[in-house]
């Protein structure tokens, strides 16, 4: 069976230990050198960056998350052993692991680490589809002659370089499509390398729960359960037409996934559909001034991102979550696309004023969608709001000042609320 030493990267036939370096980390699979669709997922990414930057944390349980009522964003593997999971409320995590070191997220550091990983991946293939800062799909089809080694070797090398050069670890899933590659990367974490070959696909999926599918959350799972579908084998019993009739386009996808089929391509340039930002407050609030401050900051963040991507949007969305976690969203279409924080804020503020709900709220978000190029945006003023032109000029001037002196150089008063 084709095999590979994950430490010295030599290709061999199945051995118990690497004859060259003596490492026991041998990866063997009948299709090992024929597969080329991969998913790379960093291990406890935020926590790993923190541990790398502060070696004294190495053997301590580390939790990344914020505030006294925040949730766990990432827990390192030491904390995970104690039962801490991401998205767990912080107080619960602290109950399980009172000696945990809690660190507020340092997004800038994570973005930098992510960029460094991205640079390494780009040496393998241009077909990279990042899902977030710490995971991405890679399509290495047709790169074997270029690199002089099959994809599996190059991926093992990527993980090794991430470890040696960046001090970060990750896991690889290698298969024949995106769905299975993503499933595989999760099988053997941390520092895993899992392969799902075409021949074993059906047997592998058979008794797995459908919740394995990315995008099948609690709601879909329970509606599937109502139809008597819990595992992939259950899914196989359904005709394509019946699944589509019952679950729409999701049903169509499920039918194919049940057979291990996923035709989605790995595309580096998926056009952006919307830009949004949201924030969970430290304390629930219905104070209009505080909410107004949040609204402005969210609008400004959305606007900054739109400007950075040279985009503008025609639909502004306001999202609120009440203290009891029930949510509400409001949206409004503008006649002209905008990328201005002032317009996004005023529109969202208008929506907010019309909500007619006293709160208190725990979360506020703001979004921009129906995107287009900035060339078509903010082209004409408003007869009835002569100040709009001045405000938009002021915003452009503010942007120029920030460009030169940093993002804190000039702020609106309401940003401080």
């Amino acid at each position, binding site marked *: 069976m084709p095999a590979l030493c994950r430490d010295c990267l030599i290709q061999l036939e199945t051995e118990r230990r690497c004859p060259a370096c003596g490492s026991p980390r041998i990866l063997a699979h009948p299709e090992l050198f024929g597969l080329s669709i991969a998913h790379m997922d960093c291990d406890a990414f935020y926590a790993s960056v923190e541990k790398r930057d502060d070696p004294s944390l190495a053997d301590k349980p580390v939790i990344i998350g914020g505030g006294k009522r925040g949730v766990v964003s990432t827990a390192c593997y030491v904390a995970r052993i104690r039962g801490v999971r991401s998205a767990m409320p912080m107080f619960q995590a602290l109950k399980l692991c009172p000696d945990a070191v809690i660190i507020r997220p340092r997004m800038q550091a994570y973005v930098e680490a992510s960029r460094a990983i991205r640079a390494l991946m780009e040496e393998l293939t241009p077909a990279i589809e990042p899902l977030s800062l710490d995971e991405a799909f890679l399509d290495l089809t047709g790169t074997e002659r270029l690199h002089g080694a099959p994809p599996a070797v190059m991926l093992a090398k990527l993980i090794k370089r991430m470890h040696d050069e960046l001090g970060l670890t990750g896991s690889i899933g290698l298969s024949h499509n995106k769905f299975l590659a993503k499933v595989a990367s999760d099988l053997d974490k941390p520092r895993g390398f899992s392969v799902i070959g075409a021949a074993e696909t059906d047997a592998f999926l058979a008794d797995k729960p459908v919740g394995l599918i990315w995008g099948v959350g609690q709601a879909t799972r329970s509606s599937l359960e109502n139809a008597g579908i819990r595992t992939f084998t259950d899914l196989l019993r359904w005709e394509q037409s019946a699944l589509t009739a019952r679950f729409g386009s999701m049903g169509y996808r499920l039918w194919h996934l049940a057979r291990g089929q996923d035709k989605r391509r790995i595309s580096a340039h998926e056009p952006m559909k919307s830009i949004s930002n949201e924030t969970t407050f430290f304390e629930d609030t219905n104070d209009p001034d505080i909410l107004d401050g949040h609204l402005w900051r969210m609008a400004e963040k959305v606007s900054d991102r739109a400007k950075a991507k040279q985009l503008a949007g025609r639909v502004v969305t306001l999202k609120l979550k009440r203290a009891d976690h029930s949510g509400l969203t409001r949206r409004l279409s503008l006649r002209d696309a905008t990328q201005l924080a002032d317009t996004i804020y005023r529109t969202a503020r208008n929506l907010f004023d019309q909500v007619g709900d006293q709160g208190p709220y725990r979360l506020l978000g703001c979004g921009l969608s129906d995107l287009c190029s900035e060339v078509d945006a903010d082209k004409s003023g408003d007869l*009835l709001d002569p100040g709009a032109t001045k405000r938009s000029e002021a915003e452009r001037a503010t942007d120029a000042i920030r460009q030169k002196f940093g993002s804190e150089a000039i702020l609106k008063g309401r940003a401080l609320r």
Partner: protein
Amino acid sequence: MKFSIERGALLKAVSQAQSVVERRNTIPILANVLIEAEGEQVQFRATDLDIEVVDKTLAQVERAGSTTVSAMTLHEIVRKLPDGALVSLTADSAAGRLTVEAGRSNFSLATLPREDFPVMASSDYQTNFSVAAAVLRRLFDKSKFAISTEETRYYLNGVYMHVAESDGGKVLRCVATDGHRLARIDADLPEGAGDMPGVIVPRKTVGEMRKLLEDDELMIAVSVSETKVRFATPDVTLTSKVIDGTFPDYTRVIPQGNTRRLEVDAAEFARAVDRVATVSSERSRAVKLQLEEDRLILSVNAPDSGAAEEELAVAYSDESLEIGFNAKYLLEISSQVDRENAVFMFNSAGDPTLMREGNDQSAIYVVMPMRV
């Protein structure tokens, strides 16, 4: 109730009714038209709770009475009957049916009790005046294109009808704007209209009222209160709530100091704008106007689809100027000009531009330029 009526008269009354009725309705009775027969007259009444229309017409009434029936179904039936047919309508209140007969056609329609039909509360109209249909038609036709559809500024979703002071004294004025363009149309103040409160006539009402104004000479009785407005001809009475809001102070929007004067044949200008805008596929097509001495160059440059340019001979003697507009807005305002040349008054590429017909101050338009 039982009466017979000529198909043409019935169609006219029923079509007015069904256009007021909302297409999508959650309250079944609001989809119906109330038919009341008495003496020699039949009355058709329909409402969407904001607008009520009552159409009276002569008929041979055999038995007085009333019922309500789906306005849309009745309209469809009458529309499909042959011209000149005599239609007879008979209500059977016990069975809850209305029978419609014409020639060999026979229809039986479900009815709802007339007691359920909401009748709009009458208002104390503080102003009553009468004005020729042609005058009202001009006021509303020339302004309605500028009505906004924006939900947030709901007070712009109609035409602001009010009494205003102009150079020649008091006038009856209609103003509409959506923030990008504005129309301000004046007419001589009709007798008795002097103390009329300013009201915002909703878009739908403007459309329904327009149907009453086909006959130039017909005098329309207008009644206005703070909350309602009524337009009546001898046959049709249209009552509508007005928009409960304050129309913004439009006077400061109308530029006073624009000095750069362009005079151009409106029809020729509109055709040229239409032609050059063809190459642009954007949602808001921007047209650039380059003004030089007695020369106007219209151009569109759409990087993705192409470019177009057209030159017009015009009267212009000021400094050269480049300014951009939404092609649709230019077309709309220039199509309002029907007698003389269009006169544009510019200031700068960023300021609102004013347009009028010759030197006629009774209809002026303002349009906001756009970045090109």
